[in-house]
């Protein structure tokens, strides 16, 4: 899949969980201010960062906040005075800080947040479900999923590079599946500080930096006379982000080897001659792609698309890709209660993106893996079978299937 540059850009290999890999990303990005407040599965990120600081490997302000709301306010303010800032959370903790998350986007402060995906309580459950991170989808955020600890580390760097670009200046949520990624230990290649410095320039707010020598006022009260124009500006930044993301991956590849391939926003697997594909977010890619290999051995033309970037949504690229297939099965590790056809959030995005295409594939939806329920290879094979059946029938009846439910 990837070729990594052998030369001196890699410093060493370590066995790291997804959480620890993010902490190393924070170290390499030389973050200035970290605000922390524990909630599983994110907690291990703050633990790992505090250890890195205690070991003298990172010089940063590390503030344990009184709540997630404080935590997110702290990093927002730190970012406004020119500090590169990091925070993270999970599930209901993330939701508790929501007011602060909304204004961070409006104030266009490029803080990076790690969201260790967790089901929203009640019931108290700490398994993965994507509804927590998805909550920022309409708020002016960058939102991206990773599938391995290696990608997690690298996307802290890519995330800051995109978020802090002058053309963008948006907060970034880096989402990672609880348990299957946050708590799984893998051998991870750690890049050198020098190589990271070449990739990630220092954080520079320019004229917007809050400082006594630069008297400005951020986000004063406005009413109907300003809000639409502010939203339009934010939208423009999100539009520009599409190009900046591509540039960031190209630059990453130039320094670290041919790691990521176009169109970068998503990753296609065995789709060249595929008739039917599944698309999903996060670690479901592993059983998904393994199911593809199994079915390919039986001569079936199937493929898998791992969607990384949810915001900005790669509308044009994904439309161009998906219209090639006869049927698309959308895997949602979330549920959009009461939404059209009672499907998941990703279903609606994919279907909406396909609507303008003159020739569209049949789209079916799978609700699966909620609250940390595992999604096995067999589950993915079942999803392929249902999608293939839909392609044959060209029908949309009962097209949302819950997979892995006790029924």
């Amino acid at each position, binding site marked *: 899949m990837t070729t990594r540059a052998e030369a001196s850009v890699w410093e060493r290999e370590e066995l790291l969980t997804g959480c620890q890999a993010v902490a190393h990303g924070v170290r390499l990005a030389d973050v200035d201010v970290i605000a922390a407040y524990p909630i599983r599965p994110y907690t291990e990120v703050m633990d790992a960062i505090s250890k890195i600081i205690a070991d003298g490997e990172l010089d940063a302000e590390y503030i344990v906040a009184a709540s997630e709301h404080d935590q997110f306010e702290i990093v927002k303010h730190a970012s406004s005075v020119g500090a590169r800032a990091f925070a993270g959370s999970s599930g209901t903790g993330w939701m508790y800080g929501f007011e602060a998350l909304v204004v961070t986007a409006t104030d266009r402060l490029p803080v990076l947040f790690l969201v260790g995906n967790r089901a929203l309580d009640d019931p108290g459950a*700490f398994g993965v479900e994507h509804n927590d991170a998805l909550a920022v989808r309409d708020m002016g955020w960058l939102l991206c999923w990773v599938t391995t600890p290696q990608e997690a580390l690298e996307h802290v760097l890519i995330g800051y590079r995109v978020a802090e670009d002058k053309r963008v200046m948006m907060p970034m949520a880096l989402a990672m599946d609880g348990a299957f990624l946050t708590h799984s230990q893998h051998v991870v290649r750690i890049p050198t500080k020098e190589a990271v410095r070449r990739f990630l320039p220092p954080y520079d707010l320019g004229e917007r930096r809050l400082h006594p020598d630069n008297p400005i006022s951020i986000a004063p009260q406005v009413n109907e006379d300003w809000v639409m124009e502010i939203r339009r500006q934010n939208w423009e930044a999100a539009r520009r982000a599409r190009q900046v993301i591509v540039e960031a991956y190209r630059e990453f590849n130039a320094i670290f080897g041919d790691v990521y391939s176009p169109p970068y926003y998503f990753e296609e697997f065995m789709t060249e001659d595929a008739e039917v594909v599944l698309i999903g977010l996060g670690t479901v890619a592993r059983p998904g792609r*393994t199911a593809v290999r199994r079915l390919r051995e039986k001569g079936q033309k199937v493929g898998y698309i791992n969607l990384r970037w949810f915001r900005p949504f790669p509308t044009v690229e994904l439309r161009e890709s998906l219209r090639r297939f006869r049927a698309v099965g959308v895997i949602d590790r979330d549920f959009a209660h009461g939404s059209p056809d009672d499907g998941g959030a990703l279903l609606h995005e994919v279907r909406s993106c396909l609507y303008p295409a003159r020739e569209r594939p049949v789209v079916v939806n799978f609700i699966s893996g909620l609250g*940390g329920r595992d999604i096995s*290879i067999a589950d993915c094979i079942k999803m392929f079978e249902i999608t293939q059946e839909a392609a044959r029938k060209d029908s949309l009846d009962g097209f949302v299937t819950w997979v892995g439910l006790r029924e």
Partner: protein
Amino acid sequence: MIKRVEINYRGIFQKNLAKKIGGDIVLIATRMGQVGFSNGRYSDSPERNGIPCKYFAFVSPDLSEEELEAECGAKLDIDEANISVVLDDTMVKGVEPWAWHGIRPINEKVTEGGCLLVVSRRSHGELLKFIAKKPYNYNLAILEGDASFAGLWVYKDDLTRERVLGAIAAVDPELISIEAVEQYLWDTTQQEHRVLAAREAYEQVRQRIKTVTPDQGIEWSYQVPTLPKWYEFSEGVVVPAVKREFRLGPGGQARNTQLKRFTSRTQRPVIRFDLCIKCTLCWYDCPDECFDPTEDGYYDVNYEYCVGCGRCAQVCPVKECIVMVDELRFEDNSSPYEFWKRDPEGYIRWAEEKKGTERVVYPFVTGTGVQVLEGERVPEGKKIMLKKKEALPS
């Protein structure tokens, strides 16, 4: 091919130990040209003292990391284990984690021809008195040693980690060879005593692997809970609570029959009712409300619910009245009070025989292994009051 290793450990006391062993297996296997990864059972809640939990390591010589992960890493529990490591031998009585698993046999996941590797000072025969029968042959290996217990977030560096790695190399040299273990320990620490500890365990365990046949072991009496379908339980996340009930005597208090928790126990309190002064402290202080008041003013302990925290033994003001004793010395959870009432002399004989003279203390934070103190056999009815300072271990 996939090699699956599960490490059964006791919540919090052995969490760091288990995680380090899981990581070591991956790193050593990687040095041998294999791929691997390691994770814990996410549904566990290992912050609870003594609760049985699992850590896993998955290794393959021929699959890609992604395929290995798809097979093993997308699962919340292990399907089967080529090696099940048991870091505390009292877990052979069964393991009941925090989630809805029920009380499972310790060898539940061991494959045909696989191995149950137990850290213990007991013999194969003694351990098999508690272990469930399997329909096929598997191996039971014993690494001689005490359970290594450390406190919250603390890792106790007492060479258990190195010894377990050596033992795993003895059980399956293709997973990790002893040479690779030794080289890894030397490269990462430059300390020869760690290398030697692994080698010593390797040599020892190679002599202590025995085949267990389908006729060896016990019939397992605990059921795996059946979880309801989505339309079969109350809406609004409402769960019926235990109905309040109380009457004097053994088992007189209503308790949750779904979660008995005794598999969290390493030691159990043995009570000399003849020495009891009816002070109520055991009943009052028990964090799990395991003591049932009796009509004649004593306090029976319900061993189905006792997690063996030792609080009752700490607060009891009478010498040798409540003593914590190794769980593997006991066959069942029946009421000690009923036994005493039925046969007072027989009960005292039994209690003293179980207690023996050694009093075992686990130094959770510092020190190595266990601390063994001398106990005393107190004559029937001779109530010797302890000064509070003596009653509480320093």
